[in-house]
């Protein structure tokens, strides 16, 4: 018997349903372990405490005047808390997105998911959406907790800052597509992920103004688009000095967003084809 009908007919609607299923599955899985969320909210308090007390040791009458010479604000804690919140997204992309496919592989569902008639990038897009929502919620909690303990005093335009952050985050998740593929290829990449996340946070200036970096290290910071995203967000929310004009920084972020979405997808498909050719998809 010959039939022209396929058992599954992929359409845009079926893709959307698959996307929704992936988001729902990840969402349920994340909140199944609520202590992780609590830990994400409270861990930064521990990391920020040494900076808070160190800042006091450098301050005169509670004013970090030295810090103001570099950043344009003596409110060093607001500067660093905002950096920590944005750094949270960097960590989420490196660990959450980087290990998205590897975790599927470890759970033994990678191969079966790969056989479903949906574009494979959709699996990563679904995971990015959940990762983004969850990180936004925990980051907001982190901002509230750190604000209550250390003090967070935004003086600028909140919505303009959010507008600058959005293209940076989309670009960052585009980079996550490529990174997830590389981790899938490498399999054991803990050391690489740990160090890369830490170095990217240092060089993009989550903890300090990048102008503090020695001249030979500053170019590394200046080629990272995240540096401009964090800088623009601070400029808009805390009225700090910025590296370039905020308009130019946002324009760079928009270019970065499109570039990373294209580059991330391209690298993902190349690595995916390579992994299929080698047949290592099911190997640990």
């Amino acid at each position, binding site marked *: 018997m010959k039939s022209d009908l396929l058992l599954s007919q992929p359409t845009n609607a079926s893709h959307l349903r698959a996307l929704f299923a992936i988001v729902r599955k990840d969402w349920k899985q994340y909140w199944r372990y609520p202590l992780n969320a609590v830990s994400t909210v409270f861990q930064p308090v521990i990391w920020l405490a*040494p900076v808070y007390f160190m800042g006091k040791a450098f*301050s005169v009458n509670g004013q970090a005047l030295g810090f103001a010479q570099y950043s344009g604000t003596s409110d060093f804690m607001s500067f660093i808390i905002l950096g920590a919140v944005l750094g949270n997204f960097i960590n989420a992309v490196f660990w959450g997105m980087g290990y998205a496919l590897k975790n599927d592989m470890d759970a033994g569902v990678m191969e079966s998911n790969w056989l479903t008639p949906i574009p494979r990038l959709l699996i990563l897009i679904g995971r990015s959406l959940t990762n983004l929502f969850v990180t936004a919620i925990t980051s907001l909690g982190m901002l509230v907790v750190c604000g209550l303990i250390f003090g967070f005093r935004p003086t600028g335009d909140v919505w303009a800052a959010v507008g600058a952050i959005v293209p940076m985050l989309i670009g960052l998740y585009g980079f996550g597509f490529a990174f997830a593929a590389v981790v899938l290829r490498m399999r054991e990449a803990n050391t690489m992920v740990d160090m890369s996340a830490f170095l990217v946070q240092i060089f993009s200036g989550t903890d300090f103004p990048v102008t503090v970096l020695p001249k030979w290290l500053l170019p590394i910071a200046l080629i990272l688009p995240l540096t401009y995203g964090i800088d623009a967000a601070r400029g808009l929310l805390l009225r700090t000095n910025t590296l370039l004009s905020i308009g130019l920084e946002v324009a760079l972020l928009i270019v970065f967003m499109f570039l990373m979405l294209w580059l991330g997808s391209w690298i993902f498909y190349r690595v995916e084809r390579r992994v299929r050719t080698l047949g290592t998809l099911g190997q640990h």
Partner: protein
Amino acid sequence: MATPTITLTGSLGRANVFTALRALGAVMKREWMIFLRYPSWVISLFIWPIIFPLSYVLTAQALSGRDGSGMAQFQAATGLHDYIGYIAIGTTIWMWQNVVLWNVGFSLRNEQLRGTLESNWLSPTWRFAYLLGSSAPQLLSMLMFLAVSAIEFALFLGVRFQGSLWLVLLTILAAIPSVYGLGFAFASVVITAKEANAFVFLVRGMVMIFCGITFPISILPGWMQPIAAWLPQTYIIDAMRSAALSTNGLSAIAGDLKILALFGLFWLTVGYLLFNWMERRARRTGAIGQY
């Protein structure tokens, strides 16, 4: 024909000091082989000593200002001129304790996950040797880590070690019982509580907040300072800074060393007692084989 009878008058394995030492040697050898089998630690050994303190050092540099105006305040608070060395030593001691909590603290748990703990537990040997033997290669790797850190601080961060090498070694020696005693206690708690990452976060968080890794304890609010006084890492950091960065000599660290000796005795005893308690409990409840 009469059936020959065999009467056993003793156990097949006769445990004594020498067999315990042989078992300890075997565990140490195994752990060392596993350590060498995964050479990614080489990258960590060279990169982490620089990048972890670097983040705090650069923040301190920003806080001091372009004209160094914040620095005078910091010097008045710490009595030291070398803020880079001050931060580098504090963060290195934190990293040491952190690694011991993860490695020594989780050594029995990892063995449980590998499925070899139960069979090892059945062998007629001194069981504390499993924990002690796992710690020895870890201690050796940490001594390498401390040496590499010191060299890199001098080469890349420009830290000037004006103190005495002998006093630094004496401080490390005084610190080992506290740092590893805490690790032993932890290992027993972890094997009972299973998923105990939160405990590690709690202890290393306390060291980070209270022990002055980047700031003088006098900066802490009044209610926090007594807590700092009950943590051995406070004294390790203080003694190490004085031994490595100043020329004040033994008299400046003698008080810290005495307190560390007491802490060391306390934590080694707690570690050993907790291990024995866990061992008895595990035999009674069968917890060794549970995940």
